[in-house]
């Protein structure tokens, strides 16, 4: 199954995993040590990231290492897109709040 890259970065845990493996290839256990969530949840996130075609897998003995396919990331542009979206949503919330306050005054 192929997924959209925005599905990968929609989740804060997956964003954090991407940051970790951008620095160095890591085993699932090493990744899991950075989070308070279960090993199963980490596996699920890694599967989704794989389906987004963001991961390279390397076998070293019995261990599998995951690393980031950096060319797929389009680097900072994705974070910028996400930031823009967050700001748009915040401002829509403010629109709603201003609308509510103005109606109360009437």
């Amino acid at each position, binding site marked *: 199954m192929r997924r959209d890259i925005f599905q990968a970065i929609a989740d*804060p845990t997956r964003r954090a995993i991407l940051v970790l493996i951008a620095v160095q290839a890591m085993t699932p256990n090493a990744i899991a040590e950075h989070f308070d969530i279960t090993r199963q949840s980490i596996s699920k996130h890694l599967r989704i990231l794989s389906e987004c075609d963001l991961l390279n897998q390397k076998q070293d003995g019995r261990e599998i290492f995951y690393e980031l396919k950096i060319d797929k990331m389009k680097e900072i542009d994705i974070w910028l897109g996400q930031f823009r979206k967050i700001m748009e949503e915040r401002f829509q919330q403010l*629109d709603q709040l201003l609308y509510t306050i103005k109606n109360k005054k009437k």
Partner: protein
Amino acid sequence: MNLLFDFTVDKATNTIHITREFAADLDLVWDAFTKAEMLDQWTAPKPWRVRTKEMDFREGGRWLYAMITPERTHWSLAEFTEIKPKTSFSSRNTFSDENGNHITDAFSLTKNSFKAGTETTTVHIEKKFDKLSTLEMMVAGGYKEGMAAGLSNLDEYFSTLVASK
């Protein structure tokens, strides 16, 4: 009403410019950006919540607030550097612990400027990041303290990639 929204990025200076129009008068929009009880109602991306712990809106004062996610609470700090009432204010933004102690060297500088129109108020936000990886951290909401070190590594990694192109 069709409200202006403009978002541009200057990668050379790590600066984001946002211009947004709001359908309210200057006094109300100013309050929405500077009063805790209003900020708490709109600044969190859903499903997160923002709760103010301290707000001291004056030059040299600070806003200490929690970004509350289902998994954990991230503390953020805005230190006000310059305030021109109903015109503009500037702050230095970073992540902190619950007492407002800095937990990272990463920061951004924000200037919010306000301009009254006939029926709307236009806000211009200029946000300058110390480095691009800080933006990523702000977007991701910040994680454990240890992530900051990883992020500076990532910044170096990206600069290596750019240099090797």
